[in-house]
């Protein structure tokens, strides 16, 4: 691990030293290419030591102050081999806190073959990102769980095999049609290696570019799981306004709540939806706004019961009860959209005041049900080729029993150094 990290640090600086050759060589084509980046991330937290989640998380690790810090490095290493018809693609990610606390993830590893110009077969582990929403994707049935705080962050893909077919038309109405079929093997829950064939999942996405509008119809089926059907669309209304929407129907979707002090799973049908726009102001400011209805989320009464469950466990003085509650929270109530109605707004102002390569952005996720919210500013600066600095302060606000107000972090500020090679 040490040699890998040293190498990742050195390579970008070596590349930087060779920047802008006086007499550049003609571009050389390569079949196998390596690239990646190293993120060094320092985060300072102002913790809410009174919150139930803080008490559960730090039950055996008392801190004398509400101000904590974290320093970690995250190397990303990618390889791509491509010929005319064959390809191999690899994306890896590691997280390193210390020699004792480090992990490596295989984000993607898949091979591809093009039986014809219009079609592609792929098999392995790969990321799908279906849906038109920026921060949320109700129709992203095979997507990784999205982090609305950083929708452009690389994530782990899905073990699957897929077939994709695309056809273009010269018609002024229908310009493109494509079909994407994905087979998702069931998780290997028998001896961690085997699974029953009957629980294989199938996803399909049909896409058309029709009358200058992107339209997808998406479905997912697995015998023992939810059955889902949805569609999305996006279109440019004017030269500076784009609109998008998603609607999803889920049959037999698992919904979790706390009943009588214990976890309860209910399977029921539900709708989720999203509507949003992207607007470019003449000042070059981009505004992205989305409303998200999470049909699988908790209503205010259910959320209050959930918070009560955590609070009781945190105040029980019983380590086993606390651990169980924490486990339930981390497994069944993950993510930053546990309730139903959310508003997401982001403003990005590239290069304000003619400050080249500096892009500040401000975004907020607002929970319309309990009026708690998160507001964050991402300040990105890329003064040198292949180097990026990011400063990222975040504030979470709301009552103690609200979603964002009840989190264990009140404020945090992150400082990233990102080097690419």
């Amino acid at each position, binding site marked *: 691990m040490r040699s890998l990290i040293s190498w990742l640090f050195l390579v970008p600086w070596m*590349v930087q030293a060779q*920047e*802008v050759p006086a007499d*550049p060589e*003609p*571009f050389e*084509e390569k079949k196998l290419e390596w*690239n990646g*980046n190293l993120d060094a991330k320092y985060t300072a937290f102002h913790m809410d030591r009174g919150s139930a989640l803080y008490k559960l998380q730090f039950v055996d690790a008392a801190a004398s102050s509400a101000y904590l810090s974290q320093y970690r490095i995250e190397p990303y290493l990618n390889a*791509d081999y491509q010929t005319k018809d064959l390809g191999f693609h690899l994306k890896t990610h590691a997280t390193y806190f210390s020699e004792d606390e480090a992990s490596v993830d295989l984000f993607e590893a898949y091979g591809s073959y093009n039986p014809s*110009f*219009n079609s*592609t077969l792929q098999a392995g582990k*790969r*990321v*799908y*990102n279906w849906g*038109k929403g*920026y921060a949320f994707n109700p129709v992203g049935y095979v997507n990784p769980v999205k982090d609305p705080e950083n929708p*452009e*962050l*690389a*994530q782990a893909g899905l073990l699957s095999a897929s077939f*994709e077919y*695309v056809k*273009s*038309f010269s018609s002024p109405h229908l*310009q*493109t049609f*494509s079909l994407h079929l994905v087979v998702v093997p069931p998780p290997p829950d028998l001896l961690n290696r085997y699974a029953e064939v009957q629980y294989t999942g199938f996803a399909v996405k049909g*896409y058309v*570019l029709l009358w*200058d509008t*992107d339209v997808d119809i998406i479905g997912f089926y697995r015998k023992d799981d939810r059955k889902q059907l949805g569609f999305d669309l*996006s279109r*440019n209304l004017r*030269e*500076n*306004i*784009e609109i998008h929407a998603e609607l999803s129907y889920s049959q037999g979707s698992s919904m979790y709540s706390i009943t009588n002090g214990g976890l309860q799973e209910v399977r029921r049908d539900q709708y989720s939806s999203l509507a949003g726009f*992207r*607007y*470019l102001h003449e000042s*070059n400011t*981009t505004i992205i706004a989305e409303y998200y209805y999470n049909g699988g989320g908790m209503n205010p009464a259910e959320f209050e019961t959930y918070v009560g469950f955590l609070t009781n466990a945190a105040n029980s003085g019983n380590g086993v009860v606390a651990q169980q509650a924490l486990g339930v929270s981390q497994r069944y109530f993950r993510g930053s959209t546990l309730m139903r109605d959310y508003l997401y707004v982001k403003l990005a102002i*590239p*290069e304000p005041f*003619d400050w*080249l*390569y500096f892009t500040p952005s401000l975004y907020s996720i607002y929970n319309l049900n309990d009026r708690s919210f998160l507001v964050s500013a991402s300040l990105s600066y*890329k*003064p*040198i*080729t*292949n*180097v*990026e600095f990011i400063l990222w302060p975040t504030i979470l606000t709301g009552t103690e029993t609200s979603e964002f107000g009840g989190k264990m972090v009140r404020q945090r500020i992150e400082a990233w150094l*990102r080097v*690419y*090679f």
Partner: protein
Amino acid sequence: MLIIALSLPSLAAPAQDANALLKSVDENLMPESYEAIRRLVNEEPDGGKKEFTFFTIKKGKEKIALLYIAPASEKGRATLRLGENMWLYIPNVNKPLRITSLQSIVGGVFNNADLMQLDYHAEYEAVSAGETANERILDLKAKNNTVAYDRLKMWVTKKDTILRKVEAYASSGMLIKTLEFKEDKDFGNGLVRPSVIETTSPLYKGYRSIIVYQRIKPRQFRDEVFTLNYLGRLGELR
């Protein structure tokens, strides 16, 4: 009535002539369908430089796609333009996002309107605006408001109809940038054109952007190359 009837052809003729000249300018700049490799160097007042390399493919009047091949921080990003529809592909998340057609995708004096330029004659109406000893001057007005620059002023050589200079203006009349076309080079297949485009802007004093064409080659593409499905695979065409 007679006067009007007689004057109409004489008014229309210069515009037709100017538009025909503009079409010739386009034909002398790029084949109708091509692949190209370009380096963009942004030079800053303190001597600092940032460099990008793009692989671009174009088919006909409406289809163009651009792939970043350097630097590493941008590698794999791609944009696709089909007429007035435009998408940005982010390789990290394997997702094409529809963006507004005026969205800028690269920092510095250049913006994506410069990099994703379709034929001038497809986007502008031209009228003659005078001449110098060696050049003709055209005044170009955008055909619609999806075009980044409302008006262009263009200098074209009389001898061989090669573009030498473009001034880009906002609808307010403000000069946004000046592009100078230099260093004619034989790219093969009968294409001799400027290989360097220098851009300066009064909005970015002391900054300069230089585009160097390394390769321009006529090439035919299937229409399927210009689809969202293909955005993540553009590198296969290099």
